């Protein structure tokens, strides 16, 4: 096996000083904090993927026949979601994720 990358700070070892690139002023890093950070990330991913599922699979495909009579502009709603709407939402979802993760990273002091 080849040598694996060693992270600058490990989750084990209480009080291991984080980062180091920018020197002092870092918060203390602990396994509890790592797990809290990861949970926040997972929750955000969960919410965004739920929206991702609803706009593409649910509104576009699964309920396609049911929503056929409802209109967006001149198009059946399911058709609009399947050929336009879901794609717009996808783009927004990624940027929202980037933006909220920026804030979470700063809050936990793990930003680059």
């Amino acid at each position, binding site marked *: *096996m*080849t*040598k*694996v*990358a*060693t*992270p*600058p*700070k*490990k*989750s*084990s070892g209480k009080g291991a000083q*984080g*980062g180091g*690139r920018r020197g002092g002023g870092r918060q203390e890093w602990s396994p509890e904090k*790592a797990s809290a*950070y*990861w949970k926040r*990330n997972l929750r955000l*991913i969960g919410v*965004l*993927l739920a929206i*991702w599922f609803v706009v*593409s*699979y649910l509104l*576009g*495909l*699964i309920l*396609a*026949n049911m929503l*056929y009579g409802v209109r*967006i*502009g*001149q*198009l*059946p709603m*399911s*058709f*609009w979601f*399947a*050929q*336009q709407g*879901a*794609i*717009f939402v*996808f*783009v927004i*979802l*990624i*940027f929202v*994720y*980037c933006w909220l*993760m*920026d804030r979470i*990273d700063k809050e936990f002091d*793990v*930003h*680059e």
Partner: protein
Amino acid sequence: MSDVQLWTYIVVAITFAFYIWIGYTNRVRDTKGFYVAGQGVPAVANGAATAADWMSAASFISMAGLISTMGFDGAIYLLGWTGGYVLLALLLAPYLRKFGKYTVPDFVGDRYYSQTARLIAAIATIVVSLTYVAGQMRGVGIVFSRFVGLPIEWGVVVGMAIVAFFAMLGGMKGITWTQVAQYAVLIVAYLIPAVAIGVVLTGNPIPQLSFTFSDIVPRLNAVQIDLGFKEYTQPFQSKTQLDVLAITIALMVGTAGLPHVITRFYTTPTVRAARYSAGWALLFIALLYTTAPAIAAFARYNLIDTLQNATVANVIEGEKQNIYELVYPDGTPVTWATSWQRTGLLAFYDKNGDGKIELRPGAAFQGRNFKAPTDGPNEVFFDNDIIVLANPEIAQLAPIVIALVAAGGLAAALSTASGLLLAMSSAVSHDIYYRILRPTATERQRMIAGRTMILIAILFAGYFGINPPGFVSQVVAMAFGLAAASNFPAILLGIFDKRANTAGAIWGMSVGLVFTLAMILMMKSNVIFGTPAPLLNDFMGISAEGIGTIGMILNFVVAFVVSRMTAPPPQEIQELVESVRIPRGAQVVEGAH
């Protein structure tokens, strides 16, 4: 030489000179530059490069035409080829960037501390990329032959020479910056005719808006009913709902598992930039992907409308097909119809001799024999590709725009081909040669291996571009199923399931890959092995295009269960997983190499 041809020569020559110049100024000397562009690509540029890397000749030339024929069901491509970026951005890209090494097998091999896992991932990379790249080289040849009048073979050779130049000199760095330029060319080439045809038909310059708010789609629906088709917007006419769902999942997850796309996220300077570049990539892709359905509906409406109003003025006996010269009611000739009949992509046959060409459901001809009409009422054959290719002429745009479309098609094919070639050759030169066979190789030996493998891969792809096996176009879409069933679950579990171990990954990937491959071979046995009928029609209602979804589920289940039944991964691997989950320290990894 016609005006169009002259302009095509000029525009293609200028863009190619530009690519070569970029390739030359971005040449590299070390493996880090060669495989991950020195990890110095800004988020927006990486987004544009990813978009060009991702959007192939098929996206550019064929997709709008496919949607135009499939109507609602075209959503499998629109959703399937965009939704995967959300998975990439949220589930893979940031963590792989933090890991920081060069390839997908790098991560799989290190995370699962196993050379076997590394080898399987490398083989999956080669199989996936190879099925994909042959079609790209063919695409280059076809665009050359259609627009420049060069034989397909020579078109492929020119394409190979260009890719070889910037890929061998610049590796990932050269490819990245060339792709940025190629994105600019292809998106401009796609949008100009789309805007123009939208203005002609609806008076609105923004295709996305006129598609949704003008009455063009309701009119198309009405005329489809008149002609005996179903409404254009009616779901599940060409495929069942279950199959549409399975195909969409396979394409989405496959996108997130394609090695040449994943590798792009190793090239950013930070984890944060990797996240944002996924957003930019999808924004750039969405520009084309939300325009395509508009083009599809506009072009279909225009085709039907023209044929309904035009009358046959003259028929020229041809060797392969009769050329019908049509005129509009006011007596002006329908020139695009005549010129595209000459390419064999459009064919008419006035079966009932009423002086009108009628588009109806069903096949017009027996196969592609345009001298042998069927008994059905349909009198029109059109290749899906003309929906995009004939657009500029239908909208009566200047010859320079037609030339631009040619350059755009070439940009789309070349950028995707170069990304695939690099992914394929790095699986051999980096993963198999350096990481498995010769870990002691020097930097110089590794660079030579990298460049040699790119050259071999180009020759290989070129050979298949010139002599395409009959089933290539049939299996390209299956590359996604294979990627979905092999790489994606292994990487995802590697990040999100700390308990996932070697045995789980190897068994999961093997089962997913073998199941998917076997199903595809059985369902496509008529085109691959020449059996009279496919050995298997579908798997519980799911076709070969969607079978990767089942392969992916199998991979997940097997990997999860086997991991629980065997020993947990060692402490250092668990620490590796901890470290990829946190952004800080993205740059540290290079020291470990």
